[in-house]
């Protein structure tokens, strides 16, 4: 199918070579996507995400993929859905206002269990807001789509992350048959730093499990059945797959509606992701041994967070630990609880007025004396500001 373009047209473009590179976050994201097997990109221009689309438009045809600029963000994500159904790994990138437009289609992708990747290069809102950096969409990521439906969202903190987490996003979307969000921000999309690409055969690339892999014949195939992650047939393979987002039975039919079947539908979707949170969600930590306080952060803020934590420890002798959420959703509640014993203060710096602080508080309120949010709007926290705030609280 898609591969015929590559063979017939003698695409000479190559994937990024192993070794040391110097790239902008946007470029690293596209190179990671290509390595992960992306063959379709459909997008729409929006500041500050347009660079990702522009790189994709140049690189995709070089490696036998197809790129299209659609008429709006809604049609962009819809094109990804169609491409995925026809067997292609597909991605788009947008910013916060475009992300709002995509929510209906994201809800649809969750219900139809369609693998696809969406990068949100967050900018401040509401409305047009501004075009600098932000983390104001992190709740929208989990709850912006209508209906009960879990989702996976990752938060890159570096150019290396823009590369690695994009590959991870594709793998997660294929493995769990779900849309996956990369909650980037203007800082990490536009920063330029070293990228180390490992030997290509050491990079794990996953594809969706298909009924053919399990010896399920077209006659016996249930598009939403067989397993908690249903094997997915592509269009054109004779499996007569029917994609539908009304509450459905395992065979895809929507007749004979009953509350039991409806609830089973939703329960399985929920279990598929939230029930596997410990396998899916990742958290990184440092300096947690006998720390008195801890700072929990994600995305670009982790760059300032770690700078501030090191300074507070090394210069002021305060025992503060550091946790970075690599995965925002499903929220790694159990992992966080296992990392922390009692601490006095949990600091949560975010480029919003306090969003992830809510599930953090929910998970860890009994493990600390207080949770202190450290909001910032429109700009990356300055280390001086974080250091001063931490010292004010911890040395009084």
């Amino acid at each position, binding site marked *: 199918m898609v591969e015929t373009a590559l063979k017939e047209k003698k695409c000479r473009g190559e994937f990024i070579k192993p070794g040391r590179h110097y790239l902008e976050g946007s470029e690293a994201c596209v190179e990671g996507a290509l390595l992960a097997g992306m063959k379709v990109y459909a997008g729409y221009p929006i500041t500050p995400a347009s660079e990702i689309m522009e790189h994709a438009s140049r690189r995709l045809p070089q490696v036998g993929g197809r790129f299209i600029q659609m008429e709006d963000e809604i*049609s962009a994500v819809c094109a990804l859905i169609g491409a995925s159904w026809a067997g292609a790994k597909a991605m788009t990138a947008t910013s916060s206002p475009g992300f709002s437009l995509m929510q209906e289609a994201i809800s649809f992708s969750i219900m139809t269990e369609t693998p696809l990747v969406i990068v949100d290069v967050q900018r401040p809102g509401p409305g047009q807001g501004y075009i600098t950096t932000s983390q104001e969409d992190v709740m929208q990521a989990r709850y912006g789509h209508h209906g009960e439906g879990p989702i996976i969202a990752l938060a890159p903190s570096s150019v290396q992350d823009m590369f690695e987490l994009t590959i991870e996003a594709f793998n997660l979307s294929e493995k769990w048959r779900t849309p996956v969000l990369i909650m980037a921000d203007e800082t990490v999309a536009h920063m330029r730093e070293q990228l180390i690409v490992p030997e290509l055969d050491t990079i794990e690339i996953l594809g969706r499990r298909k009924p053919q892999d399990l010896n399920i014949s077209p006659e016996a195939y249930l598009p939403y059945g067989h397993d908690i992650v249903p094997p997915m047939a592509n269009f054109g393979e004779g499996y007569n797959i029917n994609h539908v987002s009304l509450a459905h039975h395992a065979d895809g039919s929507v007749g004979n509606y009953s509350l039991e079947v409806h609830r089973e539908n939703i329960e399985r979707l929920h279990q598929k992701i939230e029930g596997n949170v410990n396998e899916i969600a990742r958290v990184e930590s440092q300096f947690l041994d006998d720390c008195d306080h801890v700072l929990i952060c994600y995305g670009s803020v982790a760059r300032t967070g770690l700078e501030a934590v090191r300074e507070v420890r090394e210069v002021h002798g305060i025992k503060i630990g550091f946790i970075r959420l690599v995965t925002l959703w499903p929220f790694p509640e159990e992992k966080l609880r296992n990392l922390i014993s009692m601490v006095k203060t949990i600091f949560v710096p975010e480029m919003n007025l306090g969003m992830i602080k809510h599930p953090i508080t929910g998970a860890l309120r009994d493990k600390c004396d207080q949770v202190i949010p450290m909001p910032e709007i429109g700009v990356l926290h300055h280390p001086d500001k974080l250091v001063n705030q931490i010292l004010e609280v911890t040395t009084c």
Partner: protein
Amino acid sequence: MLKHPMLKYINEEGPSGKRFPHLLCPGCGAGQVLNYTLHAVDDLINQTGAKKEAFVFISGVGCSSRLTSHYLNFDSAWTLHGRALPIATGVLLANPELKIIVFTGDGDAAAIGGNHFIHAFRRNINVTVICVNNGLYGMTGGQVAPTTPPFTSTPTTPYGNIEDAFDLCKLAEVAGASYISRWTTAHPIQTTKAIKKGITNKGASFIEILSQCPVHEHQTPVEMTKALKEITVSIKKSMDSNKIPVGELHFAPRPTWTERYESVIEKANEMIS
């Protein structure tokens, strides 16, 4: 007992029970459109060697869009209101060999789907759009649509419709569809032929099928079928008539989007030494 020949393409039963007959109202035109479409597809499979697994049916939301909900023994998708065309675009980017048939209604295609309607035709993506036009929003209760004639009373125009109606075929032509045909549910043979030609056309084909909605129009199906014949006239005789022209309205094939993208792939690789 004689079985309808097109039932071979229908899932009458499934693991969770009966699926057919379909849920559409008695006398609805969408069922006829399904019949004509399956005849067209059947002919192409038998006569031209088209592969059954290459056909993909995609619909939006509305009465006519229910045709893909679980009836078809083909690859299919019942998608978002107005968004069947961008989804179809994505399918073709991944696999240009698939033969996509889109079932849509007048509201789905020209109101919420209006933007995608014009761009899919501008791009001439290889898709056959079958638009069941009943001049109203059937599924939700008969509200006014962009195709409802002026002065009509509907649940949302209780004092009469003050808007003019789209001519969907003209809209499709200006947007760039390469094959355009209009018929009605009262013209089974011609409609089937038009759908066949639409599928065969490499490019964006738009087939508008004027259809009856007996429930919301409060008329019998027979009355409405007669009326469909009376208000339409063959394109050849339409010059001196106020009636709605039916027939092949436009046919100007040109390269499809994916065909043109081949030149992009070539250029992108030429520049690599």
